[in-house]
């Protein structure tokens, strides 16, 4: 049983023009086995929340804490956070030309697991997981994310999720840009990860459609840099019906 506690988190984005506060006091506790959906309109800061927790250099935490089983992850380097059990599936996965997917996956698994996986088991493990996500074998030899379609990138994020088996996974708009078939495949991958691992999930999304496939235990509405409303999955239905208006004053729909 693990716990991820976000306490009064304030963070700013660092740009050429200066710094601008995006997160204005986020409080959230996620326990193993729980799935929390974070829903919010564009510009509400929900992606910033994911980057701040993962340690992206563009964001500066100005106050607050993020505790993983009592340890402040904000004091850790980006790679240390991952090795401690955090995983961020990114909205825009980065291309790394020249580094093959297979080399990357093995390096990551070695780092996170603390030892190199036995080659024979590893090859089978990767092949099985790729098969489940409908990823063709040739992708193993391709450069990380280079020239991948949006859907292919998202599948590879979930592939990494299934191989690295974090304690807590943050899925940042994993559903955006996916067609119906790809959404099914990706959702299936997330559900399988949930079933096989006692992990906590923070599912960040703009639309409610992924929540029909990946059922959340809790839904939080995110606006102007913090959680403004929390509830059960019925809150997502409410958002789908009525949009974010009553939370933000903006008539932005939560329906695709």
């Amino acid at each position, binding site marked *: 049983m693990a716990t991820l506690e976000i306490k009064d988190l304030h963070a700013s984005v660092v740009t050429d023009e200066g710094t601008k506060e995006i997160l204005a006091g986020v409080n959230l506790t996620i326990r193993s086995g729980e799935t929390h959906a974070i829903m919010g309109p564009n510009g509400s800061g929900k992606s910033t929340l994911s980057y701040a927790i993962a340690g992206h250099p563009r964001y500066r935490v100005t106050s607050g804490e993020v505790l993983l089983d009592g340890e402040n992850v904000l004091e850790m*380097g*980006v790679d240390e956070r991952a090795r401690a059990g955090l995983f961020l599936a990114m909205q825009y996965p980065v291309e*790394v030309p020249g*580094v093959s997917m297979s080399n990357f996956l093995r*390096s990551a698994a070695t*780092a996170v697991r603390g030892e190199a996986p036995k080659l024979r088991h590893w090859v089978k493990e990767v092949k099985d997981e790729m098969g489940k996500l409908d990823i063709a074998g040739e992708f193993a030899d391709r450069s990380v994310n280079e020239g991948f379609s949006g859907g292919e990138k998202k599948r590879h994020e979930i592939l990494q999720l299934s191989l*690295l088996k974090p304690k807590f996974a943050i899925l940042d708009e994993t559903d955006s840009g996916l067609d119906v078939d790809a959404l099914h495949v990706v959702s299936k991958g997330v559900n399988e990860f949930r079933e096989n691992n006692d992990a906590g999930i923070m599912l960040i999304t703009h639309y409610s459609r992924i929540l029909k496939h990946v059922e959340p235990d809790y839904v939080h509405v995110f606006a102007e840099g913090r959680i403004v409303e929390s509830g059960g999955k019925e809150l997502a239905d409410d958002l789908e019906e009525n949009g974010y208006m009553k939370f933000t004053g903006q008539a932005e729909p939560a329906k695709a």
Partner: protein
Amino acid sequence: MTATGVEEDHSGAGSASGTDDNVATAVEAAVPAASRGERFTGFDVEAFEVPGGREENWRFTPMKRLRGLHDGSAVADGKAVVDVDGPEEITVETVDRADGRLGQAGVPSDRVAAQAFSSFTHATVVTAPGDTKLGKPATVRVTGPGEGRTAYGHVQIRVEPFGEAAVVLDHVGSGTVADNVEFVVGDGAKLTVVSVQDWADDAVHVSEQHLALGRDATLKHTVVTLGGDLVRVSPTARFGDSGGDVEMLGLYFADAGQHQEHRLFVDHARPHCKSNVLYKGALQGDGAHTVWIGDVLIRAAAEATDTFELNRNLVLTEGGRADSVPNLEIETGEIEGAGHASATGRFDDEQLFYLQSRGIAEDQARRLVVRAFFHEILMKIDVPEVRERLEASIEAELEAVNA
């Protein structure tokens, strides 16, 4: 006409510096004033004007750091020692300037090369016999004259018809060196060359390498530049007859303050010849500067030519600058294929963040990217001892940036 210009990341000519937001490129016109084939050549230094630094041939070179090699003020006051170690079948001769073979592979095409040709006192000629495949590579080690000293040198490597040989040309030590290196590859012969510029930090080396291929000759010419303060290597390949096949590979790694310049010219004047150019460079640290010029000329007579050239640069840290100018001139439509590509990318914060977010430590992430980047070239170096040494050198370079 089957010429294709493959453009990756940005248009064919340009430069990128690590201080820009992303893969910043200042695209500049790569149209030379005159055909590359019309550049003046000559053995006598006095026939060349003293370059001022604005000439096409010199515009990227920091002239002040040439220590007078270009204007006649660098007086030879030292000696670059040449040691040859190789299989017993090879012949090693030290000859004087009158030897009729010298200059056979090509004529100096810039003033420093002409200065070297006008100034050397003795040349080393290494000959691999014909109709014989050498069992192991020969090593030609050139040791600089020492810090503060200047030397002019001349080396010629010959492979007689239908012979097969591998030569490692190893440059080590300190000082200022200008030289010409000739490779005379006889009809049907095969030569593999790895020229390693592993100079000490103070060294300045300006070298023209003349590659002359006979009928059906094969030459794999690899240039590896790691050390030195300023290194400028200009390999020129010429085909004496049809059927020649030249592969020109390069790997360079510039640290803070280093200037590494590679100027290639492939002169296709005969039909049915092939050339393939692949140069890759990495830069790290303030003031690291690399220049790659790839001139390919397909003359009217060079029907059925097949040529491709590619340069890739990886800017690892801020403060580095990579210039890359491919230039393809085609005077006949009757060719098999011709293309070029150039790309300069930056190992950026986003890549680093992504790899680290998967648990990979920063220094390992950097190594992963650089190793992958150079892998393609290293695998083509078929002299295992040299390959292993280079792998170790690259690791050492990477350790340096993390220190």
